[in-house]
């Protein structure tokens, strides 16, 4: 190893060649690339639901109840004669937004606390770590329904509950990276010239902890989407008549003998979205991961 010249020890920010290398690695992962395209289409279709949907989601066609696919109703209708395609598109907005909201709540709680725990160490770290341990004792869905038991059902309560449930995941990832980055020379240097802790965390630590955080956010989005669907399926999340993929699936299950298509479509939508988030998370991990980078 050559002698370290402090002037050339650059901060490991994502530089342009770094970004390009990341893009090349990510694009080489065909599964992740495919997942990105699929997810992009799902998000686009959901955002454009008011333009794309042939009917209003609550519009009832009494003569065509539980109908199969036809030119008027491309994916058929439900037991009230509502158009499945339109409901699916509108449900996508609700389900994706719900998952995003849960992850935003988890990020807002988990990331700052993770930075503080990793940076301050000592009893602060110990205490926050034990709180995370306790929260992670419960399965996500059990903790979420426990919080819903206290606050009552509904989309907002369900998503805040899920956000709290997933916060320890993000906390742990950020705390781990912060612990490692805090030892770096440039952080020591910054401390020694008297930079306030807050700007060190914001300017030096957080940017360098972003990669593992992004991976975890992607995986958490998949988990939140699944959990939201499960809660809405049970009637504890998004409450009808607002459609969400979860409550469409729950309603569809009651008609499974006569109209199995009502179970296939929302299920496929949930599966495609969760699998995509997961594959994207895996792809990000491989493209950003240190183990892989060593051999590059």
């Amino acid at each position, binding site marked *: 190893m050559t002698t370290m010249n402090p002037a050339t020890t650059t901060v490991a920010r994502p530089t342009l060649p770094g970004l390009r290398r990341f893009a090349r690695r990510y694009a080489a992962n065909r*599964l992740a690339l495919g997942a990105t395209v699929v997810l992009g289409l799902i998000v686009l279709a959901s955002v454009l639901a008011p333009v794309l949907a042939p009917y209003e989601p609550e519009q009832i066609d009494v003569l065509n109840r539980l109908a199969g696919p036809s030119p008027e109703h491309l994916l058929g209708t439900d037991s009230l004669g509502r158009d499945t395609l339109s409901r699916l598109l509108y449900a996508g907005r609700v389900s994706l937004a719900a998952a995003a909201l849960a992850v935003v709540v988890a990020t807002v709680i988990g990331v700052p606390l993770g930075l503080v725990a990793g940076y301050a160490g000592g009893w602060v770290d110990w205490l926050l770590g*034990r709180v995370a*341990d*306790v929260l992670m*004792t*419960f*399965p*996500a*869905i*059990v903790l979420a*329904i*426990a*919080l*819903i*038991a*206290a*606050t*009552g059902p509904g989309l907002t309560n369900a998503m805040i509950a899920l956000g709290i449930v997933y916060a320890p995941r993000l906390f742990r990832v950020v705390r781990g990276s912060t612990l490692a980055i805090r030892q770096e020379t440039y952080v020591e240097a910054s401390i020694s010239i008297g930079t306030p802790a807050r700007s060190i965390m914001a300017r030096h630590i957080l940017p360098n902890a972003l990669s593992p955080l992004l991976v975890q956010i992607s995986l958490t989005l*998949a988990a939140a989407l*699944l959990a939201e*669907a*499960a809660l809405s*399926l*049970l*009637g*504890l999340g998004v409450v009808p008549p607002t459609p969400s993929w979860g409550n469409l*699936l729950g309603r*569809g*299950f009651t008609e*499974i*003998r006569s109209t*199995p298509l009502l*179970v*296939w479509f929302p*299920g496929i939508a*949930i*599966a495609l979205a*969760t*699998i995509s*988030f*997961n*594959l994207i998370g*895996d792809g990000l991990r491989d493209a950003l991961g240190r183990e892989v980078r060593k051999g590059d």
Partner: protein
Amino acid sequence: MLALLLRRLAFTIPLLLVVSFLIYALIVLVPGDPAVALAGQNPSPAQIAAVRAELGLDDPFLVQYWHWLSSALQGDLGVSLFSSESVTSAILARLPTTLSLAFVSLTMAAVLGIAVGTLAGLKPGTWIDRVATVSASFGVAMPYFWVGMILVLLLAINVPILPAVGYEPLGNGLWGWLSHLLIPASALAIAPAAVIARQTRAALVEVMSQDYIRTANAKGLPRFRVVAKHALKNSSVPVVTVFGIEANRLIGGTVVIEQLFALPGVGQLAYQSVFARDFPLVQGVLLATATMILLINLLVDVSYGYFNPRIRQA
């Protein structure tokens, strides 16, 4: 081994105490006066007073918690607000269903996951490995409740060989019990099987490149013994770890699956109690769930000592 068990217990018991406190403290989150909120729709003053008395809401919070905890330690978790049934007996009556579901599903996950992971890990880079790896990536993220519905469609409606919903206790015959569990257990087994397969593969690839495997091969041990006795046992620590994590997630899944498939278990009880906002029942079920999960984690930690003797001394 005993020292390891005691060390883990010393960690688990305080954790369970904190968890019990948080479970009890949930009631603080109920908006407004909990006695009014929890007494059901349009409660009479007498009903509100009854709820207040049952929950001990007039005492200071820590006193309430102490009463609840000390009774819980003696096996008394209070009485349901609506059915006047003892919470402890409600949970105990439903425990066998949930344990059956968890047992069948974890067994399926372990067998399938270890088999697929071993096949892939012994031949890394081949098409078998690629198929296994890609299937695992999909399996991890599959909506388990949807998989259950599709299995109902295929195996109970299109080709009616299994019952769609319901439960039959083991006492009424092995096949009746198993046939009611096969679909819900398969649904719950997919994700853990995928995670176990990934973990087995990764650990096996690592272990198979070790010197002692080369030695075992060189001294002419049959391939099966090398893999089963030397490689798999040494790959099992990470596999057992994910088994513990997955058991936790699976117990969460039972809440959804039991409700969906009308299985009268603790998960369904959790759902029903939350829906009715029957707080003594909610708290009891949560405490039982947490205890179950901490016990599983304890067993997992202690089993490390068996699979890797070096941990016993650590």
